[in-house]
């Protein structure tokens, strides 16, 4: 007899499908990186290797900038990627509470490589525990799109009409919006956490003094921590009943 409850949870196929919009959003970003790296006189294989190993848009641009600036201290590179993508620690911690507890260490180590903001944004829309097969399904198209987008950017700097690439700049943000609005409609606490984040983010980003000392990466972390701490104090979630 098949366990219908387990089968009902989305698996590999649904994951593949849900990865498509993410893959779409990655094309122009990877493309833009391919163009930028080629302009910085990176050879194709090096650009592709960088994309394949780092798999982070904001991080890759930051590192490319440092290389172009001729930075030689390795620690600066490590610190930069840490600061730019520090939010991943928070997101992965939050993720750890949502994924199937039976997912093995090896599976977690493998999935960890492909874990991105956008994947996270899509995956947490699942109700209940998220299955490993769903997560791996989701990683396929975005990663391929990242590799292909980078190569296309390197080879054909002018193949994608700039107007389309520019318009697609909104895709990641549209995805974040599509992730946070529906739960905010149903839950007052989530709504207020979002409102607090909006206010904090605008205040911090638009204060020249603060913007002068803090990078965008730190500002995201500060907003997220402060808004979530206030949310946790004001609206502690109900303790979930133990899974039987």
């Amino acid at each position, binding site marked *: 007899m098949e366990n219908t409850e387990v089968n009902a949870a989305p698996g590999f196929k649904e994951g593949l499908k849900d990865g498509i919009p993410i893959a779409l959003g990655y094309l122009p970003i990877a493309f833009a990186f391919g163009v930028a790296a080629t302009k910085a006189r990176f050879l194709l294989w090096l650009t592709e290797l960088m994309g394949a190993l780092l798999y982070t848009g904001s991080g890759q641009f930051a590192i490319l900038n440092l290389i172009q600036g001729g930075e*030689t201290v390795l620690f600066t590179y490590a610190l930069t990627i840490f600061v730019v993508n520090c939010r991943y620690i928070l997101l992965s911690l939050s993720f750890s*509470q949502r994924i199937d507890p039976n997912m093995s260490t090896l599976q977690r*180590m493998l999935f960890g490589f492909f874990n991105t903001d956008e994947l996270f944004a899509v995956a947490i829309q699942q109700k209940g525990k998220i299955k490993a097969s769903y997560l791996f399904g989701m990683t396929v198209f975005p990663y391929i799109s990242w590799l292909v987008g980078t190569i296309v950017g390197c080879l054909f700097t002018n193949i994608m009409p700039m107007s389309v690439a520019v318009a697609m*700049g909104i*895709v990641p943000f549209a995805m*974040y919006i599509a992730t946070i609005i529906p739960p905010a409609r149903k839950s007052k606490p989530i709504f207020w*956490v979002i409102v607090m984040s909006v206010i904090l983010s605008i205040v911090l980003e638009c204060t020249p003094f603060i913007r002068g000392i803090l990078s965008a990466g730190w500002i995201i972390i500060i907003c997220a921590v402060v808004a979530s701490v206030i949310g946790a104090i004001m609206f502690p979630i109900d303790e979930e009943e133990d899974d039987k």
Partner: protein
Amino acid sequence: MNYQQLLVIIFIVAIVMYLMRMLPLVFCKGKIKNRFLQSFLFYVPYAVLTSMTIPEVFSSTGGVISATLGFLVAVGLAYFGQGLLVVALSSTVVVFVVNQLAAFFKF
């Protein structure tokens, strides 16, 4: 910079990046019992995604008007329960059209 230096940089950065993504997943296998931490982690995604979106979204499309309209379309469609793909494509189309109009009419 020579290739050896570049490769060392890329590998070191890749390792730091990987550890940030992977370690919390591997070392935090169990359910966190503390109610405050549970609540904190429950709110984190919404707070992170919001502060990544605001105000960056308004400078994501090469024009504040197209970005604002794209943003409003995304919020509206998401509010009425549309999925990711619909929201993402619709706001892209709106931004594209507005950008074209802006270029044509020079506003």
